[in-house]
């Protein structure tokens, strides 16, 4: 075909200018906003130094959008929101309007179309995640399904302001953890070493790279059945799955032994304390499609205790810093095991070298 003979060179235009898609009130007041208020859940009101106002209505969606849904979101923008849309980092949709009388009809249109208004201030925000079995090449679970199942049960917490502070939940299908750090993170944790298909390794994997990927040097080159392959020292293996992406014949996912683990206290903000990493609280949770009820039950249990016990403005990490880990395990009735004691580099920094003990 002629188009193959003369391929089109790309225009390397990079990141587009967002100003062309920005509400005129936001362009006019760029860099000159004064304060904001939260008139009701899911709604923000920003007031500029000029006196101009912009109302934002935030709503949750299924994140993986089909074109029907995308066009429905556009219809709402055209009919009720001056044709502007933006997306938050947690894949919520935001509509921005300059007149107060636009707000309630906009909310109604969003709700009528089946989307969920909320996710602002001290709510449980939309769970951040990526694709899972739908599209990823290494997933141990289906983050999209886990999220749908959990949000069905947490929907009222998304719509209301019941929490001491905002709760960011994330979920990830492997230890690369694309969902990121979260107040609560639900992540795959493999519990058995990879199963190796020795017939394929030599053809598929660049063996030295695979050896280099292992965090604990448990992989070494080996001849198996006369073929060059790799072998794993299963006593050293930490089942992290780092070898699987560069070497798909080292299958780490297991229908039975790839479990879910729950981590808490990850916080990106610098507010109050410095940004913090999440800590393991529960593991061995069955990877149980299509609804993952066991994982949801643990998340709800943690949220219930947090809601009852934390003070205003305490994120989950702030709350546990105040009450201490023994109390956390006591209140949530989650088992404390030897696996909660860190063994990785720098682990001694996580031990209690003091007599600071609450009774």
């Amino acid at each position, binding site marked *: 075909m002629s188009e193959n003979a003369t391929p089109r060179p790309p225009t390397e235009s990079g990141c587009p200018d967002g100003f062309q898609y920005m509400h005129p009130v936001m362009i006019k007041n760029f860099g000159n906003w004064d304060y904001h208020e939260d008139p009701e859940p899911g709604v923000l009101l920003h007031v500029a130094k000029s006196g101009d106002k912009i109302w934002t209505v935030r709503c949750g969606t299924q994140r993986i959008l089909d*074109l029907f849904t995308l066009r429905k979101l556009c219809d709402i923008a055209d009919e009720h929101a001056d044709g502007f849309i933006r997306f938050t980092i947690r894949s919520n949709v935001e509509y921005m309007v300059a007149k107060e009388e636009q707000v309630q009809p906009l909310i109604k249109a969003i709700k009528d179309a089946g989307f969920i208004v909320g996710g602002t201030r001290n709510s449980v925000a939309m769970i951040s995640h990526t694709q899972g079995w739908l599209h990823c090449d290494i997933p141990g679970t289906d983050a999209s399904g886990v999220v749908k199942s959990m949000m069905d049960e947490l929907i009222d917490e998304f719509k209301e302001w019941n929490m001491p502070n905002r709760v960011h939940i994330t979920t990830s299908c492997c230890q690369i953890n694309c969902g990121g750090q979260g107040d609560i993170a639900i992540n795959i944790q493999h519990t058995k070493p990879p199963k190796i298909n020795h017939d394929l390794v030599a053809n598929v994997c660049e063996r030295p790279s695979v050896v280099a990927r292992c965090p604990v040097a448990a992989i070494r080159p080996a001849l198996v059945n006369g073929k060059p392959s790799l072998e794993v020292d299963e006593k050293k293996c930490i089942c992290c799955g780092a070898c699987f992406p560069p070497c798909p014949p080292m299958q780490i996912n297991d229908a039975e032994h790839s479990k879910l683990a729950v981590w808490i206290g990850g916080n*990106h903000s610098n507010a109050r304390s410095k940004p913090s990493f999440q800590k393991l609280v529960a593991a061995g949770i069955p990877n149980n499609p299509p609804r993952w009820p066991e994982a949801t039950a643990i998340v709800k249990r943690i949220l219930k205790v947090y809601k009852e016990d934390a003070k205003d403005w305490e994120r989950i990490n702030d709350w546990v810093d105040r009450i201490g880990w023994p109390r956390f395990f006591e209140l949530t009735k989650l088992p404390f095991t030897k696996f909660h004691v860190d063994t990785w580099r720098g682990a001694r920094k996580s031990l209690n070298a003091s007599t600071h003990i609450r009774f």
Partner: protein
Amino acid sequence: MVKKYETPMLDVLEEGQWPSFISGIRRLANEHPSEFINNITHSLLGQLEHSYETRKGYWKGGTVSVFGYGGGIIPRFSEVGDAFPASREFHTLRVQPPAGNYYSSAMLRQLADSWEKYGSGLVTFHGQTGNIMFIGTTTDNTQHFFDEINEYGWDLGGAGPCVRTAMSCVGAARCEQSCANEHKIHRLLVNNFMDDMHRPALPYKFKFKVSGCPNDCQNAIERADMAIIGTWRDDMGVDQDAVKAYVESKGRKYIIDNVVNRCPSQALSLNDDDTLEVDNRNCVRCMHCLNVMPKALSPGEDKGITMLIGGKRTLKIGDLMGTVVVPFMKLESDEDYERLVEIAEEAIDFFAENALEHERTGEMIERIGLVNYMEGIGLEIDPNMISNPRESSYVRLDEWDQEAEKWNEAQAEKAAG
């Protein structure tokens, strides 16, 4: 004839109040006029059901690219393509969003029309690296779709060992806490490295993220190799009448418990007349009090940015937060912005030359030490880069006198202005 599959497990995910991604895919499968879309999405549902039943994924990577680029597409070939042939190839295009993720409905419709011609009809705003993810099409169609949207201003993002798509917050366009022009920083930085994005040749990925204030809504410190965070260095703004109004409406106890006592550096005190005293020299710009009382408190006037380098998630050596490498710099003049880009160029050049294969910047710094890294990219060390000085005495101090002299000279120079 469209081939359909039984999906009893996925059907369960159509129940419940939260919008269902399965219902959306099924609508494409059953109701969309394009037979290509019907086939590919039915087949996708079939394979996904198979994953739910067996608790395994069945996609494999490969090599797919558009003419002139080496990255930007996530190739997916099905391992069970014989059973689900219509989605045998199901590649994703990563497309860079506008800074701040702003769109008009007209532009979204135009993108939807193009994707309808060439893809599965599934799209996500956005992936965790910040790209628009156009999910699911054939190798041929990746080129056609890219050619079409590239004509009206859209470019592929990063995938593989390269400079990745950047992210920035809602920023100065709507947020009173913004201390920087996130939009300009984002585009200036990333658009300077299009060659490094489109032709992956770095040791591993390199990400920029921009947050306009220390609330860090873009998760930059933890997730970016180079995090740019807006901040200020003069006194914060205090509207004492508004403080009094907060005390009046919320009560003194509430303000003491939730504002004063939550200050991490004990820089706040509530006066007897319900005004707020701020020890600005000891304020660490954490944002908490500004978040609680946005009407009363605001960032100062002398705004700029803090730069941190080296954040990343677990694999391989464990999670790393970014480290401060520039405690404060102004971003006002063209020269200021040029200097910012220059630091980024130094950081990427040094990364390209010194990181091991599949090693992120943070891991490289852990291996070679912050001091060597700072020398490598031509920045001076500063006590703002550490939580505390070294605790270990296992160190050679042969050149202590020269180093102390260097510091004293620099301080004298600063004092002289």
